[in-house]
């Protein structure tokens, strides 16, 4: 909601500077998102009077206007057709600014077709004030020559753009904001002048019936004999400052009063309604399939969930949302039916959402309007109509379904306020603060108040709401900050968080780089990377059609990222920890995964490194259980054949392998490089018991190592060979692969045998053990 500080002064006296008022509003009422000053051209342009118009000697479409600004007269070349002698117009002197789509430009002095022009006459759009560029902006004859056009249109002080929170529907009006400012400035609110009607019980010539529970009040007032000219410049200027396009006096007045008082209003062309029959309006639910053409020229197909205003069987408005096209007021309208009503917030919101039709009326109705403002708003419109368009009110006002609302009463304990807020309010202080903004407050006990909520504050329902009023009016900046002093929390343990944190740090210590990807997946990801198990979780309303699934694996984004960045880096080592999900029927399986993605030119060594890191994960995370590897039984189809499966405490938790050529080729991976990937679910590790690692005392006797190199047979793997070596002699503590490289004959593998016992081993027993193993290894070599 915009708040013009010029306009605000109609309702409350402000003594603070604009900056101080803005700051005070932030601290009590609403955040100021932007402070908007009048556009520079509007401030620089001055009022001039056209004293003569002559044809341009060298151009048919141009004319020479003589513009008088005080004692000086200027000749200006002008192409606009709407100028006439004696008009007051905005004049921009050469050297000052005018507005263009690209911003503000300096007006150069120019000679146009041989005649020097001292400046330009400006349209509204030249001044950066609205989009009207049709003709020169014509100012009222009361405007004094030489004054700034900004002053003439009433935009001298800044306009504040306020972020109104959804609970404060009362702040979507100048009246509501004036109430807050009055509390800040310790002043009173002045209501705008209204037309006094003899009694609003004297019926209008239009009758009204309400046939739905979703309209708690409907009033109609008929005004005839109006002249619907353009609204006065000051009103147009105020609407423009709120991004509302001026149309004609009647429409502008209803919009103006909506901004002023917060009550959405609508005027129907009564002549059109008479064509449908008597002026009998009813508020009813729409028929299924009923079509309605609105002011925006769109056709809406309605259902029983929508409410319409009906006149003679025709839907003339979608209640609380938008008026109909055919009954709209135009410049030729001479009589109107004015609607002021209260529609159900949820119903209006649902209709607006269903039809994607958001209007200023919706914004107010969906948050709830002040039920006591319905009639005041009508009287305010009538007052402005009377001044601007003339006309006569026919009868009074038809007022249907109105029930006087009782004010909500809330008991407030100031002792409890102290317990919740940590701030003390005396009953007198509290009463003063609350009455400043229209709440009623009477002391009912030593620390107790009975508070009456004003009709416009539908957000105040419970004692805590009143605490908020007290603390915000007392000043959040007055709160003495303290720290909580209660007992510590011992019932919840941070096991999962700290375990994940330990794993992440362990990965980083092992030279892996952590990624954080978007948690969405595409249909292509599913086609390539989804393996059996649950179905991917589809998003019903994705922002892009592409990323239409919640991720089922961490790898697709990591692989895409590695391929994209492979153009600028030779190798990459990355990991990510995050949640993934699949579902079967309506059951969602969400798990935390760890994935690793390595770009490498040596996939065998890299896979060994990754496995080494994975093997240490449980210990590094202080969880029990161990990671082991084995031949994968059901192979992930995006991996080159013979990937390994990863097991945790014997259960399969993931796979490790090399990404297929098909994928890397499509990703334009250049050079002799590969992607080694692994993905595991961390769920069982996170659920495992805590295990603190056990220290092993240092070897007391020499450790013996022996290396044996063999060339593997074509169809045997290092794992087969190692498995065949079992059982090993007792003094053999470990056999690992110390070196591996491809040769023409097959892979050359160097096995390293570690032998140890708690005594010095003899040469011969070492030789025997090594020979035993060598024999087995040789059996598998070519």
């Amino acid at each position, binding site marked *: 909601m915009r708040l013009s500080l010029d306009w605000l002064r109609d309702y409350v006296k402000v003594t603070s500077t604009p900056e101080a008022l803005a700051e005070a509003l932030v601290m009590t009422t609403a955040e100021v998102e932007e402070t908007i000053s009048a556009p520079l051209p509007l401030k620089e342009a001055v009022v001039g009077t056209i004293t003569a118009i002559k044809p341009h000697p060298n151009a048919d479409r141009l004319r020479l206007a003589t513009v008088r600004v005080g004692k000086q007269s200027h000749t200006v070349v002008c192409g606009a057709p709407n100028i006439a002698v004696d008009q007051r117009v905005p004049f921009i002197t050469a050297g000052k600014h005018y507005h263009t789509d690209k911003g503000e430009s300096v007006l150069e002095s120019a000679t146009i077709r041989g005649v020097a022009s001292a400046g330009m006459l400006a349209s509204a759009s030249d001044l950066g004030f609205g989009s009207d560029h049709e003709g020169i902006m014509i100012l009222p004859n009361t405007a004094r020559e030489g004054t700034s056009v900004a002053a003439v249109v009433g935009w001298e002080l800044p306009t504040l753009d306020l972020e109104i929170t959804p609970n404060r529907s009362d702040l979507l009006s100048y009246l509501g904001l004036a109430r807050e400012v009055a509390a800040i400035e310790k002043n009173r609110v002045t209501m705008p002048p209204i037309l006094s009607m003899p009694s609003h019980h004297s019926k209008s010539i239009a009758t009204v019936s309400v046939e739905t529970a979703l309209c708690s009040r409907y009033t109609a007032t008929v005004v005839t004999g109006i002249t619907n000219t353009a609204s006065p410049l000051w009103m147009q200027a105020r609407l423009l400052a709120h991004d509302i396009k001026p149309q004609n006096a009647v429409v502008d007045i209803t919009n103006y009063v909506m901004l002023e008082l917060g009550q959405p209003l609508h005027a129907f062309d009564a002549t059109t309604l008479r064509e449908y029959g008597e002026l009998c309006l009813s508020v009813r639910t729409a028929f299924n399939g009923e079509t309605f053409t609105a002011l925006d020229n769109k056709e809406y197909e309605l259902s029983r969930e929508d409410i319409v205003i009906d006149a003679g069987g025709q839907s003339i408005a979608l209640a609380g949302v938008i008026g109909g096209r055919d009954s709209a007021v135009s410049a030729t309208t001479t009589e109107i039916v004015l609607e002021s009503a209260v529609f159900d917030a949820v119903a209006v919101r649902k209709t607006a959402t269903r039809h994607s039709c958001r209007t200023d009326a919706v914004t107010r109705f969906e948050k709830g309007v002040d039920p006591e403002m319905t009639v005041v708003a009508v009287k305010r419109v009538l007052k402005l109509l009377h001044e601007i368009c003339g006309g006569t009110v026919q009868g009074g006002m038809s007022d249907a379904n109105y029930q006087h609302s009782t004010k909500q009463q809330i008991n407030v304990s100031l002792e409890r306020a102290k*317990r919740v807020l*940590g701030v003390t309010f005396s009953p007198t202080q509290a009463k003063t603060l609350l009455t400043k903004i229209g709440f009623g407050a009477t002391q009912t006990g030593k620390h107790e108040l009975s508070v009456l909520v004003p009709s416009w504050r539908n957000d105040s329902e419970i004692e805590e709401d009143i605490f908020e009023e007290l603390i915000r009016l007392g000043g959040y900046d007055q*709160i003495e900050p303290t720290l909580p002093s*209660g007992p510590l929390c011992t019932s*919840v343990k941070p096991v999962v968080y700290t375990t994940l944190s330990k794993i992440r740090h362990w990965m980083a210590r092992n030279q892996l780089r952590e990624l954080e990807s*978007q948690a969405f997946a595409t249909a292509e990801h599913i086609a390539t990377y989804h393996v059996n198990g649950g*179905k991917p979780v589809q*998003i019903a309303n994705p922002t892009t059609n592409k990323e239409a699934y919640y991720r089922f694996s961490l790898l697709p984004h990591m692989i895409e990222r590695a391929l994209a960045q492979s153009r600028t880096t030779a190798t990459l080592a990355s990991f990510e920890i995050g949640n993934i999900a699949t579902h079967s029927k309506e059951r969602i399986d969400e798990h935390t995964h760890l994935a690793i993605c390595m770009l490498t030119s040596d996939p065998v060594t890299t896979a060994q490194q990754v496995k080494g890191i994975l093997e240490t994960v449980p210990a590094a995370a202080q969880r029990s259980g161990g990671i082991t590897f084995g031949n994968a039984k059901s192979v992930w189809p995006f991996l080159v054949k013979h990937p390994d499966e990863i097991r945790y405490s014997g259960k399969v938790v993931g796979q490790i392998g090399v990404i297929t050529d098909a994928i890397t080729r499509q990703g334009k991976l250049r050079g002799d490089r590969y992607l080694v990937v692994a993905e595991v679910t961390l769920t069982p590790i996170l659920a495992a018991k805590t295990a603190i690692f056990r220290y092993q005392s240092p070897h007391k006797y020499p450790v013996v190592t022996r290396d044996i190199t063999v060339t593997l047979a074509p169809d045997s793997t290092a794992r087969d060979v190692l498995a065949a070596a079992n059982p090993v002699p007792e003094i053999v503590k470990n056999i690992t692969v110390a070196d591996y490289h491809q040769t023409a004959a097959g892979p050359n593998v160097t096995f390293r045998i570690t032998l140890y016992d708690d005594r010095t081993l003899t040469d011969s027993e070492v030789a025997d053990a090594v020979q035993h193993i060598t024999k087995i290894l040789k059996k598998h070599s070519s």
Partner: protein
Amino acid sequence: MKLDAIKRDVSAVLTAKISRDDQYNKILGRKGVIATALRAIKDLPTAERAKIGAALNTLKIELEAKLKDTPAKSATFDVSLPGTPPVTGSLHPINVTIDRIVEIFGQLGFVAQTGNEIVSDYDNFGSLHFPLNHPARDTQDSFMLADIPDMVLRTQTSAAQVPIMSANDLPLRVLVPGKTFRREADATHQPTFHQIEGFIVDEQVTFADLKGMLNYFVEEFFGRPMKTRFRPHFFPFTEPSAEMDVLWERPDGSTRWLEVVGSGCIHPAVLQNAGINPKKYQGVAFGFGVDRLPMLQHGIDHMRALSNNDEELLRQFALL
């Protein structure tokens, strides 16, 4: 055995282009020229033994001094070469920030918890006093699931409030960091972002405590006293509600208020939804948007640079 021949062998080794250690070994080592010659003395006629032996010992002493005294290695090392950067992994700046926030609130007794990213509409909205069809939901447009009704990608880590409150004994001081999702994407918003929820439920914890904690956090996090602004706001699940801004200085010296954290006293309806008696217990809660914090701290100018996982950017964060 000719002494001259031995001396010739020695000088051959000394002039050979081998390391000083090798020279030492070849001359004075166990199988070196001198040792071999000394071992051969026993084969010489007795008369020559003493003479040759004395000469060899003299030569040995000379050579030992020579090979020991010569500056051997240092002259060949140029330590003026520039340093090479250490090879390290790195943690993502977002997670470094989350760790830091968890650490700071850990000092105030908060315990970090995790929660699911796909949650029920009730946990995300209903339990937090967001009525259905209420405009407050407009501020958090949620992703819904195609095949499963009433489930959403959580729009706020606050979705973990009622489940954690329901499942644990009081008092509670809990932090919930994690990914959150909203249907909005522009220069400053991504559909996936990160939040940290924090809340206390206890018999005694006040709005003033909340302000104090947030002030403490801001000062610890930014490492210096910051000008803050604690001002009213609205959240359906807190009453009263507040936001805290910090006065942020741009590189050009100009300043602006930056919203850092939303907060408030937990609404009694939320406590009730968790089966907690709001007459006996009360609470405070706060929620940070995480993503902007590392951007502010380290001068990252585009959110996309963070979410693209750009290697060049991430590499720099090895220092964190």
